């Protein structure tokens, strides 16, 4: 039991249960399983994005371009769907994954091959990808009436009583869990975050692994692009503007250290759920949605204060930089 309390995920889970409890004192129907399923579905995209961001942050990098990637890829699939409604949805999802992968690979190549800090690279591509969305769309919107019924309906179709969107989130969570706990790549991602220099000496190609994590976050951005557009049924240049910081916020609340090496799939999922619950709960308990920003800001600051207590004790760093590549 005491061993269990050491996991920050347990604490976060307790905080979430407490939060739901508090909300249900004012609005009992909130804790209803049907409503909780709805909250999970509403948070699915943020959870998926947070997982993509997590693998990047674990390697001491950051991907600020995810929301722009989402916007661009979403526009691409929306325009494809509007022009050729016959393209089946699974193929569109594959296209979204590929487009996202390419955008992520651009980030990854700049970080890997040119050694530019990821924050600079993705700050640049953040504006470039969103600008590119404007260029391909000419500033026009793709509205619901131009999208095919399949495009909109796919993620809403219920399978075993749960919408496909939730199933996609569950699938992504499972895949990331396998990746982080059962594969060599997952191990190297953690190793690079904890100590890049030691990772080089154990034979891990730090640069290439960073390239791979940016490809992963790119694919996630692309996938979320389709999911976002088909959920909110509008594709425009403004889609998910500024959302990159929500994604990072979910990671931070989930206990993922921005300094790399610390964090788990469970943490990222719970961090996203925490934010999702707050945004779902505010309207039902009659608090103006304008409070949401300040509340999530306070949650981030509190979370990082709590995280810091767990991170104090760390190995001594003898060599500062990894002689990568």
């Amino acid at each position: 039991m005491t061993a269990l309390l050491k996991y920050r995920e347990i604490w976060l889970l307790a905080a979430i249960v407490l939060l739901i409890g508090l909300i249900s004192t004012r609005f009992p129907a909130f804790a209803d399983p049907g409503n909780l399923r709805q909250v999970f579905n509403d948070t699915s995209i943020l959870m998926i994005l947070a997982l993509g961001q997590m693998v990047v942050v674990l390697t001491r990098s950051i991907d600020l371009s995810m929301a722009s990637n989402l916007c661009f890829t979403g526009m691409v699939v929306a325009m494809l769907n509007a022009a050729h409604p016959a393209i089946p949805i699974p193929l569109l999802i594959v296209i979204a994954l590929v487009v996202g992968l390419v955008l992520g690979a651009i980030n990854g190549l700049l970080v890997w091959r040119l050694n530019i800090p990821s924050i600079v690279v993705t700050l640049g591509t953040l504006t470039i990808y969103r600008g590119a969305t404007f260029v391909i769309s000419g500033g026009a919107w793709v509205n619901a009436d131009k999208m095919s019924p399949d495009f909109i309906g796919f993620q809403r179709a219920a399978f075993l009583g749960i919408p496909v969107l939730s199933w996609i989130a569950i699938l992504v969570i499972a895949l990331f869990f396998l990746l982080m706990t059962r594969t060599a790549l997952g191990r190297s991602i953690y190793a690079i975050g904890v100590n890049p220099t030691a990772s080089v000496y154990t034979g891990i190609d730090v640069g290439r692994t960073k390239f791979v994590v940016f490809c992963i976050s790119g694919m996630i951005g692309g996938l979320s692009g389709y999911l976002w557009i088909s959920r909110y049924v509008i594709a425009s240049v403004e889609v998910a503007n500024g959302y990159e910081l929500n994604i990072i916020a979910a990671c931070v609340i989930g206990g993922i250290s921005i300094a790399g090496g610390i964090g788990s799939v469970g943490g990222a999922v719970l961090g996203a759920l925490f934010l999702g619950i707050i945004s779902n709960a505010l309207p039902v308990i009659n608090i103006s949605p304008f409070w949401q920003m300040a509340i999530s800001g306070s949650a981030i600051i509190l979370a990082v204060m709590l995280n810091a207590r767990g991170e104090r004790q760390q190995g001594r760093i003898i060599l500062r930089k990894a002689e990568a590549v």
Partner: protein
Amino acid sequence: MSDVPAPRHIPDRLDKPFSSAIFSWEALLIMVAVAIFTINSFASPYFLDPYSLSDLTFNFTEKGLIAFAMALLIISGEIDLSVAAIIALASTMMGMAVQAGAGTPVLVLIGIVVGLGCGAFNGLLVTRLGLPSIVVTIGTMSLFRGIAFIILGDQAYKGYPESFAFFGQGYVWWVVSFELVLFLVAAIVYWFVLHRTSFGRRVFAIGNNPVAAQFSGVRVGRIKFILFCLTGLMSGIASVLITSRLGSTRPSIAQGYELEVITMVVLGGVSILGGAGSILGVVLAAFIMGLVTFGLGLLNVPGIVMSIFIGLLLIVVIALPIVWRRLNGGRLT
């Protein structure tokens, strides 16, 4: 035994050969600026006009003011993503004061004090509690702007006094705006502080190696705290200027400025990893960003497309020296 005595004379500044000045970052930026200026003046007949050029300066003065303090902060190895949110909060507070009937001097004071207070709050969280600044300021960014949203909702404050309009719209002499004068004065002050005082030297020392700096007697925490306060202060001043220029306050004011300010600083040659950079570079980067956005604006290029150029400029200018070095014998850094 070759008993070479230790050098007696350690110069305050290394004498740089002329060739290094030519290949310096600032020289590269000047070339980029001249190139863009030339292209602009050929591309649009309206560009080379004193009044156009004066309008141009409004594109970078407000962000540039913050960029100076941000440059020092990034050199010291920290970052502040909450600057735009500080602008929003300070502007909201000024708006509240206007509703309560405050005059211009009080408004300016409120803007500056709120900015300073927000900066001090960031500084305390980072230095006292030892939290990573990138996360803290993502949090305070939501918090500060969130408070502005709570107060204002979808409303806007208007009705600023006429004398208040001078800061963002007034001209000191002919086409020289108050904002531009403030920008130039701030540039000189920050240049002096960073490059000619022991405080500036300490900032570099902290950025290069905080532990070594601490053992050399530098009060790392205190200096970082001061730098956060300065960044807040400059954001407060920028808030006064923007509010005065727009004449109204919405909670979404200055949205996305933080990334533009950081782009400006990084484009100016400040290492995002800390420990290196110059104010001259930041001034040049501010000019370049102003030139690009204004020049494209004259050509009726939409703002969102301009951002592509800014993003490309950032990556290309950073990547260029690296590629150049690779091609010239593959020496690393």
